[in-house]
């Protein structure tokens, strides 16, 4: 308990494994083994998702307790979790464990910073849009690069929101660039934080390979309601989602799904009948991400079909369910659909993840959905593509 005081600010460590037992105890995995967080552990971990003083936390958590012994047990659990490194004080770094969730590890951020087309496009849009009286809200700031871009473009103030412990590093990056007086890093989910003033411009670089898979729509809707002025400008402002039916080479599909070809091969190798697995595969909505240079080799059976055009300033629901029709420009078996998006970042800057595009950003892969039962298309045939985003990832379905 050395060093803990009521004024000590604690926060939850980055990624935790938690086991809830049948008896209601909550065990947290640490490098020293399992530590018991007690029956109030989930509430404790939830409260410390954002930096909070020990005194404030004990006060807030105290209302959950029954009598004195319950409070003793709860406060002892808090101290125990702090001793075990589950709760960290101040600038104490996260223990050096392998980060398994994607955005608190360096990999994705290195890829984005190496993606000059992507990062430069966002910086150029900010340079075009930011005015001296702007309060900019950067949702999902990561390393802080776009927050710095907004400040350098002249924003009066920037609030840079980041849910992962990378926020601490973003603060150091801000200081290293001498912008600590105009850029405030706020750690937490944008849907949970509060800001001292409303933003006049928001940048939300939270588009996934499947454009909406990082919850861009609910995040933007929430930001418009709670964090932004009514007429705030958005970067991106419009996202267009496209789909294309394709013929994926059989040998590629063989690596991803149970097919008659690979189950026959396994029968010959192992003497086992695995054919029923193909029926299971037929019921799956199987999606994977492929590199654009591979997707470019697959025959496309139509021009890109515009599935959705989303004006993020006008959107009033986080759900998208649309059907669009297209015309086959080539004949072939459509066993997959490929998706990509265009995003208008500013009047002068649009980015596109079209796998066939020149100068395409490199850090986004191409989402591909397998068609469970391939559809034979002949040139000139009309087909329908159904696009749905209902809260998880998006889904493009070829409707036979």
């Amino acid at each position, binding site marked *: *308990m*050395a060093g*803990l*005081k*009521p*004024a000590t600010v604690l926060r939850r460590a980055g990624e935790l494994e938690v086991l809830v037992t049948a008896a209601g105890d909550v065990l947290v995995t640490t490098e020293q083994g399992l530590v018991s967080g007690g029956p109030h552990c989930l509430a404790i971990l939830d409260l410390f998702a954002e930096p909070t003083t*020990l*005194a404030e936390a*004990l006060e807030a958590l*105290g209302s959950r307790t029954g*009598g*004195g012994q319950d*409070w*003793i047990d709860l*406060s*002892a659990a808090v*101290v125990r979790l702090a001793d075990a490194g589950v709760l960290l004080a101040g600038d104490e770094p996260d223990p050096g464990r392998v980060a398994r969730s994607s955005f608190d590890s360096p990999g994705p951020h290195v890829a984005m910073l190496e993606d000059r087309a992507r990062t430069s496009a966002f910086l150029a849009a900010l340079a075009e849009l930011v005015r001296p009286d702007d309060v900019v809200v950067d949702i999902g700031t990561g390393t802080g690069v776009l927050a710095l871009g907004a400040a350098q473009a002249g924003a009066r103030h920037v609030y840079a929101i980041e849910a992962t412990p990378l926020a601490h590093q973003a603060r150091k990056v801000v200081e290293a660039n001498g912008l600590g007086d105009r850029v405030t890093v706020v750690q937490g989910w944008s849907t949970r934080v509060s800001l001292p003033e409303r933003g006049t411009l928001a940048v939300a670089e939270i588009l996934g390979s499947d454009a909406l898979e990082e919850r861009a729509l609910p995040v933007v809707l929430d930001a418009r309601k709670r964090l932004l002025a009514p007429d705030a400008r958005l970067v991106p402002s419009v996202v267009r989602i496209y789909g294309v039916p394709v013929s994926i080479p059989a040998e590629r599909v063989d690596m991803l799904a149970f097919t008659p070809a690979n189950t026959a091969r396994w029968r010959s190798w192992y003497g086992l009948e695995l054919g029923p697995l193909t029926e299971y595969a037929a019921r799956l909505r199987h999606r994977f991400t492929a590199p654009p240079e591979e997707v470019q080799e697959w025959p496309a059976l139509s021009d890109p079909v515009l599935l959705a055009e989303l004006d993020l300033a006008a959107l009033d629901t986080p759900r998208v369910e649309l059907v669009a029709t297209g015309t086959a420009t080539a004949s072939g078996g459509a066993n997959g659909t490929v998706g990509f998006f265009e995003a208008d970042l500013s009047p002068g800057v649009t980015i596109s993840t079209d796998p066939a595009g020149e100068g395409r950003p490199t850090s986004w892969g191409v989402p591909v959905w397998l068609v469970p039962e391939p559809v034979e298309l002949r040139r000139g045939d009309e087909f329908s593509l159904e696009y749905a985003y209902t809260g998880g990832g998006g889904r493009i379905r070829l409707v036979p």
Partner: protein
Amino acid sequence: MTSTEMTIEPTSRLERNASVAFRRLADGEGGVLLHLESGEYHGINEVGCLIWELLDGERTVDQVAASLRDEVEGGPDDLTGEVIVFLDSLRVRDLVR
């Protein structure tokens, strides 16, 4: 002289140890003090809670007793003496300084 050796006088000023967390329990049940350095818990009654909340480092023991007299009916004649006894028990446990 360390805080555990000092003699508490009516003119002494004591304050809560910053390493101590305090929880007031439901009405009438007193409170719990947690010394964060030692990990020890101490239960105090309602009157003890009132005294604890008055220990801001500015009030003398006499002033604490006077405030207490205003809030609690039927206290002992030597309230200051009783308060000193209580404060001494907190001091030896490093809960006040």
